[in-house]
């Protein structure tokens, strides 16, 4: 039984990768996710300057959804690079870098720095819904902006032969247009999706729970939205996809692959099933393979489109 996936030329022992922003602040925390069964990890998104992020409460978990407005806290790309180097000393599993910025130039500068580190793939986060006041609407809503950033980042990554995946927003009504624009600008893949905008109000205090008021919804409530985004992008662009959003079980992950995901991002699931969730999901996928006589997971990618 083969769970290996070769994604953009990088070998993953299994398709389950830690999504950006969950647990992945330090080398050690990412290594722990590998030990607990993940096929690869994505580091928490990095920016040029360190950021403290929003004021707490920044996260809340409920039965079927998770809401966050962490506000892209990170120690800055230079510190982040040290964690990436350390991670690669600790293990040989693939690591996906992740960057964001306030302008096309800043994305470019940040990319230049992170490309000096041993990342296997670089994810461009243009889709965080929680920093509107600072950065305006996510670039992921605008095909031109998404393309301009992808192009700029590619200038840095191509010198190092590092493939790029642009991370899309489920809030974009024209997600396939955005994906196409990114592909034309040189994106090797897309990550679909980031969180969808949401809010929850505390009825006792009669005020939004998050200090940032609005946040991003992830977890099971996001899954059907993510499946549709992956499906649409696969259909329209025929490009590799890191399918992310609401995966908490092996069956969810299989669903994402059938929709067209080559890798499957898993984040909020650790809230419901603990950090052991990576191994649990992979085991459940293997069970599915046994039950359905599937030799290799790679064979089911996009399969739902052919039936």
């Amino acid at each position, binding site marked *: 039984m083969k769970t290996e996936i070769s994604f953009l030329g990088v070998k993953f022992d299994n398709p389950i990768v830690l999504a950006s*922003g*969950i*647990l*992945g*602040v*330090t*080398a*050690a*925390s*990412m*290594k*722990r*996710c590998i030990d607990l069964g993940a096929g690869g990890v994505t580091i*928490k998104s990095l920016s040029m300057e*360190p*950021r*403290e*992020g929003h*004021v*707490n*409460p*920044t*996260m*809340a*978990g*409920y039965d079927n959804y*998770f809401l966050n407005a*962490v506000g892209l*806290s*990170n*120690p*800055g790309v230079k*510190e982040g690079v040290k964690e990436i180097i350390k991670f690669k000393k*600790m293990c040989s599993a693939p690591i996906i870098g992740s960057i964001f910025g306030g302008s096309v130039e800043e994305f470019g500068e940040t990319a230049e720095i992170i490309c000096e580190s041993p990342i296997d793939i670089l994810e461009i986060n243009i889709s965080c819904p929680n920093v509107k006041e600072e950065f305006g609407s996510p670039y992921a809503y605008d095909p031109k902006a998404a393309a301009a950033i992808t192009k700029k980042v590619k200038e840095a990554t191509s010198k190092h032969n590092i493939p790029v995946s642009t991370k899309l927003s489920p809030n974009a009504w024209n997600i396939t247009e955005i994906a196409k624009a990114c592909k034309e600008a040189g994106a090797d893949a897309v990550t679909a999706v980031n969180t969808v905008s949401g809010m929850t109000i*505390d009825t*006792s*205090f009669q*005020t939004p*729970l998050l*200090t940032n008021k609005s946040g991003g919804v992830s977890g099971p409530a996001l899954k059907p939205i993510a499946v549709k985004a992956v499906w649409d992008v696969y259909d329209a662009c025929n490009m590799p996809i890191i399918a992310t959003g609401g995966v908490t079980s092996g069956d969810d992950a299989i669903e994402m692959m059938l929709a067209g995901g080559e890798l499957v991002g898993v984040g*909020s699931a*650790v*809230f419901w099933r*603990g*950090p052991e969730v990576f191994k649990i999901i992979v085991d459940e996928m293997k069970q599915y393979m046994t039950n359905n006589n599937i030799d290799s997971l790679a064979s089911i990618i996009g399969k739902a489109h052919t039936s």
Partner: protein
Amino acid sequence: MKPTIVKILNIEEEAENVLTFTLDYPALNSRPGQFVMLWLPGVDMKPFSIASDDGKELKLSIFKVKKFTTALFEAKIGDKVGVTGPFGNPYSWKQGAHVLAVGGGYGSAPLAYLINEAKKDDCTFDLFIGARRKNLLLYSNKFPEEFTHIATDDGSEGHTGYVTEILEEKIKKLSSKDKKRAVVYVCGPELMEVAAAKVSQKYNIPSQISVERFMKCGFGVCGQCCIDDTGEPMCIQGPVLSGEHALSLPEFGKYHRTKAGAVEKY
């Protein structure tokens, strides 16, 4: 993980710059060593160790530091606050153990909770409390004098010097029978914790240390509190670790991470 909104029932002055807040929280079901996140809407949400939980009321002893704690110190009886938790790995003990509790700063708060619970399991106690000076001592007169031992840096009360020095003196004097059933429990400034863990190790007494890191979620999602080199989140795997495990971590006593996640040396 909806915050429970509760009323402040009482506010008492505990020491200089320390207030104990009593909250109307029935059935929290916590264990000593665990913490809650306290929410003041519009201000922040921060972690605090549980100082007492009798199934009806929850007590937190809080040092005034900056923004959040200053805002909290302005709260009045009857005001409402939000609480999530309890979170984290608690202290544990065996029936009839001899508890050597070592507290510095607000560290005495969870240890007081530990003593009150372990009493029910026929444990015996020695409580060691340290502070820079007398006015900063927390919980130094809550327990019987015969088992309360005090150290201050300036000698304004008790032993002049570190609390770990009086811990070591006491351990040396323990009968071999008491030593066999002894466990050291520590909560306080990290360098004091390192010293206490080492003293315990030196005398072959197991220890349990509360290791605190910057916390955002409190429930193992954000990764902000993960410690090197195991990557364990201290909000779940900790705060209470065995002393041996804590001492094996290259981060313990050496550095921690800020709110942004940057390494900061002690």
